[in-house]
C-alpha cells in the first residue's frame, strides 16, 4: 500500500513540476451558442477609427442607433480614434487586463499580434457560415450580405494562419494625385499609367529656379515636386512591382536585398536634386499640392477629399490655395502592362469574452456594419469602396458614382475618381503576408526610405556601406532578427544545462520507478 502511495505521490509531483513550466492559463475558445439570448441585456464596446472626418463619425453613430433599434437588448458604446496605431497600442494594453473592446477597427497586421494571447481574438470561420447567425443567416434580423457577396480579395485579406480572424470593413488603395496644370506647363503629357521613370523625370524638371531663386513652374520659393505619404507602402509596392522579395508567409524577412538597395539609390538620387520628399520629412502631401507647392502627391484614396483646389476638406488657410486642375492616376509602375497597387483599409475584429452570448452580440453588430446602409454611407465619406458586391451593385451606390462632379462635397469628382480607381483595379491589388512581427517589418520598410532621404538631406555619403549599416540598424531596431528566430528552431542553439539535467533526471526517475515496480512485483510473486 505504502509503495503504491509513493508511486501516486511521485506521479503527482511530476505532473505539478511540469505544469509549473507552463505559461498562463489558457482562456476557453469561443463556442457559438445555439441561439441568441434576447432576454438578457448586453453592453458592447466598439473602438472605431475615422479619418478625422465628421461624416464618418456620423455614419458610425447612425449605424449604432439603427442596430440598437433592431436589437434592443444590445447597447453599443463607441470610442473614437483617428489613428490605427493608437487603437493597436490601447488594445495591447487592455489584453493584459482582460479589458479589450468587443469589436474594433484594425489592420490584419495588428491582429496577428493580438493573437499571441490565447484565444484573444475570435476565429470567424464558424460564424461566417453558420446557417442561423452567419453572414445572411436565417436568424439575423437585418439584410446581411451572404459570404459570397463579400469581395473575395478583401475577405481573403482577413485570413491569418489559414483562418478568418477579421471582417473587411472598407477598402482603399493609394492614388497619385496630379496637378495637371503644372505638368502641362512643364511640357509633359500625362499617360494613363505613369512610370517611376516618368514621374521622377517630370519632378526633376520642376526643380528649375529663376535667377531670383523662385521655382519657374509655380513662381514660389517652395516646390517639392513629388511627396509620398506612406513610405512603407512605397517600398512595399516598388518591391512587389519588381517581383523582388519582401517577406514570406511564415515570417521570413527578405527585404534586405540588392533590389531594395537599387530602389534606395534611385530615391536618394532624386531626393538630392530636390525632386522628392516624404510626409514625415515635409508634412501632408495634400497641403503642398493645394498650395501649388507639389505636383505629384501620393496618398490613400481615403484621403481624396483633401486633394485639389476645390477639396471639401482643407488644412491650410484658403488664401494659400492655388487654382489648378487635379487628376487621379494609379501609383507609378515599373511595368505598365502589369499594374500592382496595395489594398488597405480598416477591418473589424472581435475579441473573445467569457460569455459566448456577448461574443455573439458583438458578431451581430460587426455583421451589421457590412449591410448596404452602412457600407454605402461610409463609402461616400471618402475614396473608400464598400467591401461587398451587394453594395457595389446596388442602385444607390451606382447612382452615387454616376453623379460624379455634381458638387464639391458628396459628389466631389476627385473622391469618386479615387473610388473608381480601386473598383476598376481590384484584381491588381495585393497585400503583404501577415504574421506576428509583420507590422514591424512594414515600419522598417518605410524607415529605409525615410532614413535614406534624411541622410541625403544632411549630405551624408550614400553607398553600399551606408546601406549595409542601415539594414543592420533597422534589423535591430525593429527586432526583425527575433521574427526569424521565432520562425526557425534551428537557430535556438543547444538546450541550457538546467534543461538537460532536468530531462535527464526525469528519464532516470522513470527508469528507476519502472525497475522498482518490476522488482517489487517479482518479489511479491516470488519470482527470482
Amino acid at each position: 500500500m505504502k509503495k503504491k502511495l509513493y508511486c501516486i505521490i511521485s506521479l503527482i509531483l511530476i505532473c505539478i513540476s511540469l505544469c509549473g513550466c507552463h505559461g498562463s492559463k489558457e482562456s476557453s475558445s469561443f463556442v457559438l451558442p445555439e441561439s441568441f439570448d434576447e432576454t438578457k441585456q448586453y453592453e458592447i464596446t466598439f473602438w472605431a477609427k475615422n479619418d478625422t472626418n465628421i461624416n464618418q463619425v456620423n455614419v458610425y453613430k447612425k449605424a449604432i442607433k439603427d442596430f440598437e433599434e433592431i436589437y434592443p437588448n444590445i447597447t453599443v458604446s463607441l470610442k473614437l480614434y483617428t489613428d490605427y496605431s493608437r487603437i493597436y497600442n490601447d488594445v495591447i494594453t487592455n489584453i493584459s487586463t482582460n479589458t479589450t473592446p468587443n469589436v474594433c477597427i484594425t489592420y490584419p497586421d495588428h491582429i496577428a499580434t493580438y493573437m499571441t494571447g490565447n484565444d484573444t481574438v475570435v476565429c470567424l470561420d464558424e460564424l461566417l457560415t453558420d446557417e442561423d447567425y452567419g453572414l445572411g443567416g436565417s436568424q439575423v434580423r437585418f439584410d446581411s450580405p451572404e459570404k459570397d457577396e463579400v469581395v473575395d480579395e478583401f475577405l481573403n485579406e482577413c485570413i491569418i494562419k489559414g483562418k478568418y480572424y477579421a471582417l473587411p470593413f472598407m477598402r482603399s488603395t493609394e492614388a497619385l494625385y496630379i496637378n495637371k496644370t503644372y505638368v502641362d506647363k512643364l511640357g509633359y503629357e500625362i499617360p494613363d499609367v505613369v512610370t517611376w521613370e516618368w514621374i521622377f523625370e517630370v519632378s526633376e524638371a520642376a526643380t528649375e529656379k529663376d535667377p531670383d531663386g523662385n521655382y519657374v513652374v509655380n513662381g514660389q520659393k517652395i516646390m517639392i515636386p513629388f511627396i509620398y505619404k506612406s513610405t512603407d507602402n512605397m517600398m512595399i509596392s516598388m518591391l512587389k512591382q519588381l517581383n523582388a522579395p519582401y517577406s514570406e508567409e511564415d515570417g521570413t524577412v527578405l527585404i534586405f536585398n540588392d533590389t531594395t538597395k537599387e530602389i534606395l539609390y534611385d530615391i536618394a538620387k532624386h531626393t538630392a536634386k530636390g525632386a522628392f520628399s516624404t510626409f514625415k520629412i515635409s508634412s501632408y502631401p495634400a497641403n503642398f499640392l493645394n498650395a501649388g507647392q507639389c505636383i505629384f502627391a501620393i496618398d490613400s484614396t481615403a484621403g481624396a477629399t483633401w486633394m485639389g483646389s476645390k477639396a471639401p476638406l482643407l488644412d491650410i488657410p484658403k488664401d494659400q490655395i492655388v487654382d489648378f486642375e487635379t487628376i487621379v492616376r494609379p501609383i507609378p509602375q515599373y511595368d505598365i502592362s502589369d499594374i500592382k497597387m496595395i489594398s488597405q483599409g480598416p477591418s473589424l475584429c472581435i475579441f473573445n469574452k467569457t460569455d459566448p452570448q456577448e461574443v455573439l452580440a458583438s458578431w451581430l453588430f460587426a455583421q451589421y456594419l457590412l449591410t448596404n446602409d452602412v457600407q454605402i454611407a461610409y463609402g461616400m465619406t471618402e475614396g473608400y469602396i464598400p467591401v461587398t458586391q451587394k453594395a457595389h451593385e446596388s442602385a444607390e451606390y451606382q447612382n452615387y458614382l454616376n453623379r460624379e462632379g455634381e458638387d464639391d462635397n458628396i459628389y466631389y469628382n476627385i473622391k469618386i475618381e479615387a473610388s473608381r480607381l480601386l473598383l476598376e483595379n481590384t484584381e491588381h491589388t495585393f497585400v503583404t503576408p501577415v504574421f506576428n512581427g509583420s507590422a514591424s517589418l512594414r515600419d522598417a520598410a518605410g524607415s529605409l526610405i525615410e532614413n535614406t532621404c534624411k541622410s541625403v538631406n544632411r549630405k551624408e555619403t550614400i553607398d553600399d556601406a551606408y546601406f549595409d549599416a542601415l539594414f543592420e540598424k533597422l534589423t535591430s531596431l525593429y527586432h526583425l532578427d527575433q521574427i526569424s528566430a521565432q520562425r526557425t528552431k534551428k537557430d535556438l542553439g543547444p538546450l541550457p544545462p538546467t534543461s538537460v539535467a532536468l530531462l535527464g533526471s526525469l528519464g532516470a526517475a522513470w527508469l528507476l520507478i519502472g525497475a522498482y515496480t518490476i522488482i517489487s512485483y517479482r518479489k511479491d510473486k516470488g519470482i527470482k
Partner: protein
Amino acid sequence: MKKLLTVLLGLMMILSLSACKKQEEPQVDPEPAPTDDVVVMNYGEYAAAELGSKVVIEAYVQAAQSYWNGAKLYLQDKDGAYFVYCDGKGEDINLSEEDYGKLVPSVDYSAGWTGLCDGTKVRVEGVKSEWSGEVEIAEATVTILEGEKWVAEAEDVTALLGSDELADHMNKKVKFSGLTVAASKDAEGNDVAFLYNWDGSGAEGSNNDLYFNVTNGEAPFTFVVESYLCYEGSEVYEAVKALNVGDTVDLEGFLYWYNGANPHITSVTVR
C-alpha cells in the same frame, strides 16, 4: 532504493523549478554620461542653426505629452524654447520610458492626467527640423542632467497675436489675456464654444483634442487642448468644455505651431 528514488525526485523538483526561473536579463552597460567635449549651443546659436543640422542644447522640461514609443517634450531655458519630437513608430527612442517617468509627475495615464513638469534639466542632441511650420528637434537623444530645476513664467504675448513676430516665441510657455471665446460650427452648423477634434469628429469619452476659437476683436484664432498633454478630465479640459461663446478668458499654454500658431493650452480662466 526508496531513498534513492526520493533523492532523485527531490533533485528533479529543484531542477524543474530552476528551469522555470525567469532568464536573467543580459547586463547592459549603463548609458554613458554626457561628456564635456560636446559643444552645447545656447538658444541664439540654436535659432541660427540651419534646418537639418545637428544641434545640442540644454534646457528645462516644462511639459511632456504622454509616452508613445518615445517622448514629445516642451523645453525652455531663459532665452528661448524648444520642442523635442519622437515620431513614435519604431524610430530610435529618444528617451527611455523609465527616464521619462523621472520627468513627469506620473505615468498613470488615467483620466485627468497632465504632463506639466517641474523643470528637470536635460541635454538634447538631435537634428533641427521643421514640420508644418513647427521648428523642433527630431531624432533626438535626451539625457537627464543633475542640478537645479527651473520652471518658466508664462510670457504674455496677447499683443503679438496675428503678427509675424509671434513665431519668435515658438514653443514658449505663454499667456493670452482678455480674449473672447468665438463660435465654432459643429457638424449641424450650430454655433458652439468648442469642438472635439478640429471638425467635431470626436466625442466625449474618447480623449480627443478640444479645439476652440478666441478673438482679440479682430480675426479669430484657433487654440487647442492637446489631449496627450492634458487628458480628458483634467482641469483645463473640463474648463474648455464649460466655455460659452462670448466668455472673456485668460489662457496659458505652449506656443506650438501647425501651419500657423496653434497654442497647446494648459490653463483657462473665465473672467
